């Protein structure tokens, strides 16, 4: 915090003592020092195994998240059963776009948080907005060290009885809205979601699901890093349900009209 005055005053008088007004740093307590000092380290990465869009939609009584189950290794569709949408607790769900390794790293930390909370047994559970805030701080601090977690996250859940949907990206930009999409979804699916929500701002669960499925279909047609195998998560006051391995009907007849495609 402040420069340690003990280093200015005769250091032999009070070596390693606490600075006035500060707490003594007990030896052995974990000090997180990822890098030495303020030397700028540029470790900005390029992501390796990645996930594409996640879609999020608030409906009347809850929130819904959808995304495919592909982990792309560059242009190769390598891992085809990756769960990019996970349950955090009975009121919160997390979905991730971007580097899968970074997502799994954070997932483990969040899972440990939930366990620690369980052990504390004090009645307090992680709420979606709190998770969103925490995630924002973590991502922003990592980007400030030029060592980002290469993801965009969607946090969805029920906050104080009301549906909540928030987004954070790898540079720590955070916001919340009733309809959010990441990756290609932001360009392709979000306009479709916005149009539908304008016509009917309070959708039913079934309408929301139908809308997300139609968006997922368009994404499968148009996003070259998409897979026709999806997860849909629904969060209501009753709890969290995540359906996996959803396959959509597609119609590729239009391909016949593409000149040069045989």
């Amino acid at each position, binding site marked *: 915090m402040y420069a340690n005055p003990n280093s200015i005053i005769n250091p032999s008088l009070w070596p390693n003592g*606490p600075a006035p*007004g*500060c*707490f*003594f740093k*007990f*030896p052995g307590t974990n000090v997180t020092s990822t890098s030495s000092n303020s030397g700028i380290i540029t470790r900005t990465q390029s992501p390796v195994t990645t996930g594409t869009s996640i879609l999020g939609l608030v409906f009347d009584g809850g929130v819904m998240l959808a995304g495919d189950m592909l982990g792309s290794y560059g242009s190769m569709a390598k891992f085809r059963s990756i769960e990019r949408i996970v349950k955090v607790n009975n009121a919160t769900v997390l979905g991730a776009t971007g580097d899968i390794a970074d997502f799994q790293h954070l997932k483990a930390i969040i899972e440990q948080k939930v366990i620690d909370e369980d052990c*504390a047994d*004090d*009645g*307090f559970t992680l*709420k979606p*907005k*709190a998770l*969103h*805030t*925490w995630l924002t*701080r973590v991502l922003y601090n990592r980007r400030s060290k030029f060592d980002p977690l290469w993801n965009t996250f969607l946090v969805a859940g029920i906050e104080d009885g009301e549906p909540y949907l928030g987004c954070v990206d790898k540079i720590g930009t955070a916001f919340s809205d009733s309809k959010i999409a990441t990756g290609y979804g932001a360009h392709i699916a979000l306009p479709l979601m916005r149009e539908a929500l304008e016509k009917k701002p309070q959708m039913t669960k079934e309408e929301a699901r139908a809308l997300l499925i139609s968006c997922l279909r368009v994404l499968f047609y148009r996003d070259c890093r998409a897979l026709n195998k999806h997860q849909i998560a629904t969060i209501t006051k009753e709890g969290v349900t995540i359906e996996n391995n959803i396959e959509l009907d597609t119609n590729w007849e239009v391909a016949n009209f593409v000149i040069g495609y045989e």
Partner: protein
Amino acid sequence: MARRYDTRTTIFSPEGRLYQVEYAMEAIGHAGTCLGILASDGIVLAAERRNTNKLLDEVFFSEKIYQLNADMVCSVAGITSDANVLTNELRLISQRYLLQYGESIPCEQLVSWLCDVKQAYTQYGGKRPFGVSLLYAGWDHQYGFQLYQSDPSGNYGGWKATCIGNNSAAAVSMLKQEYKEGETKIDDALALAIRVMSKTMDATKLTPDKLELATLTRHDNKTYIKVLPVAQVKTLIADHEKKEAAEAAKSKPTTAS
């Protein structure tokens, strides 16, 4: 005889005691009284102000009562400089939590966190413990209004009514008799606080400049922490004295001439 074992906090005495911790509590026993009372609609903190010298330039609004965050307030008894370090740290812990999670820290978590630090000072590093006991009054959405007390050993407990500092034992036994659980509202708690403080404080007569009173209440989903203005304290003391006089007149049978 046990002197040899006093010099370091990290050492037990032959009888299995931590003398430094006990000495710290001894120091607190000579400090100005603080008491806290839990009411059904809020919490009252009362503190005896010792620095009443007229030459003091009034820099601080309150000598012993500190707001920690939006939903918690504490009062301290003991070595003031130690107390300043601890209240500063409590405020920092609260803000760190608020920054990380966007919501107020649960009351017990804040108390527990600081108490872990206080305990560390009794076990490692050869440092002396903090000579401060604290009363924490707070609200959170899980447990509502809560009152906690912590001492130099790092131990803490939740209380319905308690007292620290000078004459605290007498005050606690008085509270034990007079505190009505479930039937106490803020105004009852304030009256009870004045009653107990008047018995435990050194001064023969209670005056507003010797007494600090604070309340923590909730209205419209928001916590309100108020250090009572001098005028209000004066009124409460006057009410108390009126009641005392009435009680005295009742118990004394009318004597002739």
